[in-house]
């Protein structure tokens, strides 16, 4: 039960029920589709990148509480970030969601509410789908990103 509460925190429900930046971004200059073949979840990530900075981003799609909240939190966390910073941030995030009982991650800010995912290995792909899709969008690959 305690693990469940860790996973399904209020912040996560808030972002699941009222996802931020959940719309098509008309001015986007990068976008990619993401797909989790395991559960059929699909989302699209849109990015506006100017002079190496993510000036705006959004996502659209349907998914579980974890993947939707993770996408929503990601869009909040990355607005205004330099694209050079994204890789390190994703690495830290990935480490957090795959490493049980890890040290705190102050550098991840609000994203830390997803730390509970590390106790649920079957859900790591839900938490990272938006991030994988974001990476694909930055590379402007036309191939849909998958969690595989």
């Amino acid at each position, binding site marked *: 039960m305690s693990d469940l509460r860790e*996973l*399904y925190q209020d912040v996560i429900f808030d972002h699941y029920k009222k996802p931020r930046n959940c719309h098509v971004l008309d001015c986007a200059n990068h976008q990619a589709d993401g797909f989790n073949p395991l559960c*059929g979840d699909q989302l699209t990530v849109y990015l506006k990148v100017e002079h190496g900075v993510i000036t705006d981003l959004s996502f659209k799609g349907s998914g*579980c*509480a*974890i993947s939707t909240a993770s996408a929503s939190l990601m869009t909040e966390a990355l607005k205004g970030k330099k694209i050079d910073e994204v890789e390190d941030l994703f690495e830290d995030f990935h480490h957090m969601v795959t490493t049980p009982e890890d040290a705190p991650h102050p550098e991840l800010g609000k994203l830390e509410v997803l730390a509970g995912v590390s106790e649920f290995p079957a859900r790591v792909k839900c938490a990272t789908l938006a991030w994988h899709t974001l990476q694909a969008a930055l590379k402007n690959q036309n191939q849909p990103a998958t969690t595989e």
Partner: protein
Amino acid sequence: MRSESNKVLREAATPADVARWRDDFPILQETISGEPLVYLDNAATTQKPQSVLAAEADYYRHTNANVHRGVHTLSQRATDQYEAARGKIARFINAAGSNEIIYVRGATEAINLVAQSFARPRLKPGDEILISAMEHHSNIVPWQMVCEQTGALLKVVTINDAGEFEFESFERLLGPRTRLVALTHLSNALGSIVPIERVIELAHSSGVPVLIDGAQAIAHLTVDVRALDCDFYAFSGHKIYGPTGIGVLYGKAALLDAMPPYQGGGDMIRTVTFEKTEYNELPYKFEAGTPNIAGAIGLGAALDYVGAIGIATIAAHERDLLDYATREVSAIPGLTIVGSARDKASILSFTLAGTHPHDIGTILDHRGVAIRAGHHCAMPVMQRFGLSGTARASFALYNTRAEVDTLVAALHQVTEIFQR
């Protein structure tokens, strides 16, 4: 004709019977997050009774040798057991003979074998293969592949909102270019039973052969291939309490005889020279290479186990569980059952408003309840109902009403967590 024995009203098994059956399955002693395992993912794969585990272990301890090759004692023993299992399979589905039982890896390989060895050489551009809208991907993709190879077309029989096979759609689509009908016997995503007796009769009246995907049905319905008169019947051992990696293609001998081999290699030949190879007789023509010997023997043990209890008894017990579960979950606010066919078995697919199946699965798992969440390898079914996935509880002979109660309590917890 539909499996008369399924219709016979039987006393449902007593709780004492079920308790005894449960003792046969060591894995049911497992705990998950400190809770007793409630295994309701039987449509994905079933658990294995002690007798199956022992048959495989005994084979490796006392018998292991290659089959159809050696003069030594173990090889003879292995061959005898391997072939005895084939005989058990033939009797279980009432095939005319063991030579109509081809060992394969599972239903998937069985269907691919028919697609490549039976359908492919016969299909011309514009010919048609008929399937239904509730097929598992493994009864869709092999046909798409053969259509691509030959220019044939795939036609899809519709299903109604209850998830029932629409016979009128089938009658409309069965035409002069139809070369094969390939249908599931029991839908893994919806639990619907397809009226395959009528389908086979009508198809045959137009001279069209029929393949039945029995991956789900084999453990829940009586299957008599001669009474059905189906041309091919495919199933996997692991869904009927047997090992993974072993399955069966039943085919009428006359059809199998006329088909070219599926794969080349050892055991499937009579003589080989570099000029010409003569193929072995049935069923060996389709069994190239060293097979899953232990798996075949394990499957034989699984069919012995099921046969001793009786499919009709198992079906009656599962019917009771399905009815009970259907009633109980219907009281959960926001829960919608997906698939309400009148003729249904062993599978309860559902959605919960505002809650993704994946989240349901995680929370249930925390209470020890194993279900499947997602598209169940039947994405067209999900599209038909406008869903990305469902949660699915599926029953087997060792499940109990108490386990259904645990499922229902856990689902209430899901709604609590998600409504806060």
